[in-house]
């Protein structure tokens, strides 16, 4: 299915940046349009050029005349690589690291709290981009307001909020997480988790939901893309952009608007009901999430959003595969009841047999390790290279393919990871960096 259907309807799509580009190709003369890097260089002396960093380029909001582009062939051996400037930047007391992810509102980057040395993630919101999203600014305000009150192991913690009026940016500093369930699912065989793992995440989701509902908050956009994991596999519910706080003095949980992601919407919203039970929306979406985590598929599919919503509206989910076993199948069927009143409450789900028993890890099944598209296996801090650059700056800024090959000893069969490439400076520099801080175990280069 079109992955777009798993995102919110209301968000205007921005291009995901293709690669975490660590290299800038610098001797190309013709202007090149790219999301990450936009370099124009006239003379071979690089010093005469003022480089723009990614954000400045984005701020330019370029609209290039497509006809001006032409192919320009450069022999690969002649390409001069320049390690991307790791310019250490601070926002408040935080040191910025690399981009962790990207949404329609802006980027999420890693940060390091320079006072507590805690790893953090920051959601950078740009006013300009927010204005393009329907209800964008309102949603952010509501998210901040809600996150300020919420405090639970399975709900993302908002640590700090900073504003930069000059740049028209807002920084939401949050707990650091290493991966999104969605990314993990996409990288795993069959796009699903072993039941054992899905069970672990699902029970944590239930704890989080129970807390949220207890606080009178309906999330309305539960899906693997909004479930994060910390290093110790604690699940965190995130993205309260379309969440709603219920009236404290009303015994009902009536909601009037649904803005969540189509594939996870319940029939009542797909059919355009004027009002519906908010809590049962979260139950439904959690059901779709569980279905997705354990089967790699969706209970409803459609070629496009309209077909999809039509299918959901009919409320006849694809029956859970028999391979899931009777307990899980029955639970999914109950959570995906067309009539919201027939769907179980969180408390009832917690008492369900499948939830009560921890499923064993079947032979041949392997746990999927938390990862995002960008992080390495060990989830090394991406802030460190910036700090290294700041304190042990290298002299050599450029190197060619030949340098690289030399460095890696013919580099034939070895594939380069981006991390290696970015550190692929001359051995002299490496030695200096080693001798200066190699003694600290946490600083050792791997």
């Amino acid at each position, binding site marked *: 299915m079109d992955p777009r259907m798993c995102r919110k309807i209301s968000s205007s799509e921005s291009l995901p940046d293709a690669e975490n580009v660590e290299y800038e190709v610098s001797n190309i003369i013709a202007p090149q349009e790219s999301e990450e890097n936009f370099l124009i260089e006239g003379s071979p002396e690089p010093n005469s050029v003022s480089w723009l960093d990614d954000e400045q380029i984005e701020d330019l909001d370029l609209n290039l005349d497509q006809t001006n582009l032409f192919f320009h062939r450069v022999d690969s051996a002649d390409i001069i690589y320049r390690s991307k400037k790791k310019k250490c930047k601070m926002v408040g007391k935080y040191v910025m690291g690399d981009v962790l992810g990207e949404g329609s509102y802006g980027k999420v980057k890693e940060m390091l709290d320079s006072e507590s040395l805690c790893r953090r993630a920051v959601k950078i919101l740009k006013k300009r981009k927010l204005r393009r999203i329907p209800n964008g600014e309102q949603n952010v305000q509501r998210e901040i307001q809600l996150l300020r009150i919420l405090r639970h192991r399975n709900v993302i913690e908002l640590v700090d909020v900073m504003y930069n009026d000059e740049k028209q940016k807002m920084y939401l500093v949050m707990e650091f997480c290493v991966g999104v369930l969605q990314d993990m699912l996409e990288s795993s065989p069959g796009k699903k988790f072993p039941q054992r793992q899905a069970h672990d995440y699902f029970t944590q989701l239930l704890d989080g939901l129970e807390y949220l509902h207890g*606080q009178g908050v309906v999330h309305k956009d539960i899906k693997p893309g909004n479930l994060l994991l910390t290093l110790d596999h604690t699940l965190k519910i995130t993205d309260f952009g379309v969440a709603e706080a219920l009236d*404290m003095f009303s015994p009902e949980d009536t909601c009037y608007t649904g803005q969540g992601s189509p594939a996870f919407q319940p029939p009542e919203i797909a059919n355009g009901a004027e009002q519906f039970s908010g809590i049962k929306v979260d139950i439904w979406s959690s059901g779709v999430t569980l279905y997705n985590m354990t089967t790699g598929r969706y209970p409803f599919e459609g070629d496009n959003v309209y077909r999809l919503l039509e299918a959901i509206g009919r409320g006849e989910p694809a029956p859970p595969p028999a391979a899931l076993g009777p307990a899980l199948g029955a639970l999914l069927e109950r959570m995906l009841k067309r009539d919201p009143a027939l769907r179980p409450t969180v408390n009832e789900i917690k008492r369900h047999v499948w939830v009560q028993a921890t499923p064993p890890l079947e032979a041949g099944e392997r746990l999927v390790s938390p990862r995002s598209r960008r992080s390495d296996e060990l989830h090394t801090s991406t802030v460190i290279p910036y700090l290294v650059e700041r304190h042990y700056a290298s002299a050599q800024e450029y190197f060619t393919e030949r340098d690289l090959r030399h460095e890696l000893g013919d580099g034939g069969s070895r594939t380069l990871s981006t991390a290696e490439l970015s550190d692929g400076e001359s051995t002299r520099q490496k030695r200096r960096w080693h001798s200066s801080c190699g003694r600290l175990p946490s600083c050792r280069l791997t």
Partner: protein
Amino acid sequence: MPLFGKSQKSPAELVRSLKDAVTALERGDKKAEKAQEDVSKNLVLIKNMLYGTSDAEPQTDIIVAQLAQELYNTNLLLLLIQNLNRIDFEGKKDVAQVFNNVLRRQIGTRSPTVEYICTKPEILFTLMSGYEHQEIASNCGTMLRECARYEALAKIMLYSDDFYNFFRYVEVSTFDIASDAFSTFKELLTRHKMLCAEFLEANYDKVFSHYQRLLNSENYVTRRQSLKLLGELLLDRHNFSIMTRYITNPDNLKLMMNMLKEKSRNIQFEAFHVFKVFVANPNKPKPILDILLRNQDKLVDFLTKFHTDRSEDEQFNDEKAYLIKQIKELKPLEH
């Protein structure tokens, strides 16, 4: 297979010799010292069976199942807890570890130890009375909180008469026992949302008349902790009907207004979070409205000056502004 020379005792043998040792200890005759030694030794052996050691893995499921079965058959768990104060320091900790491990055991969807304890609720009551004895209070606390994770066991404890002893335990003069008791008390009242809501609803008068005493306690920590917990309970939607009931009682409002004026800023702040519910209620009953109206000007004045240094806390300031507006706009009911 035993890894180190000596042949290992079977679970049945171990449990029997531990039981004999504990019984001897209980009798307290001249062989007490020897019994003490035997108890410690056998406890360590059982613990190693369950947890393994640095050079041995935990025993297989079959051995553990046999061990658990023997523990049930001999009622050894209860015996151990009853004699906990006679067992030495390390032994007490071992009892708690063995107990918690056996409790967590699952076979499919079943938790056999939970089922066993349901048939032997004395175990729970003995554990709860552990708060009476300083030297075993914290060991009993760890076991109790592990029990409280299971709805069936939490239910037995909540609905027992012994539950009301907690209102005494959380106030005892030894700080660490009082805190331990409070965390168990809180766990029981918050862990299983539906169970707790049903319990509070069914026993509203009894629980809240006891609770009132905590809020009026001489002990600052008790007052503060219980007020905070009260706020959490009332603001949790699972307890909706308890909240609506609580905020119709003018005595409760008076108590909160007095707590707003307490010396301690922390207590003032916690009281604010309960007080706001009375004011925000769109359907205030007449007695509540009367109190607020009688104090209208004083309240507006008081709140305007209330914790003005919390300028960072937007949430708090929004709520305060909202309350001031609400109180200003209060009008007596017509007719």
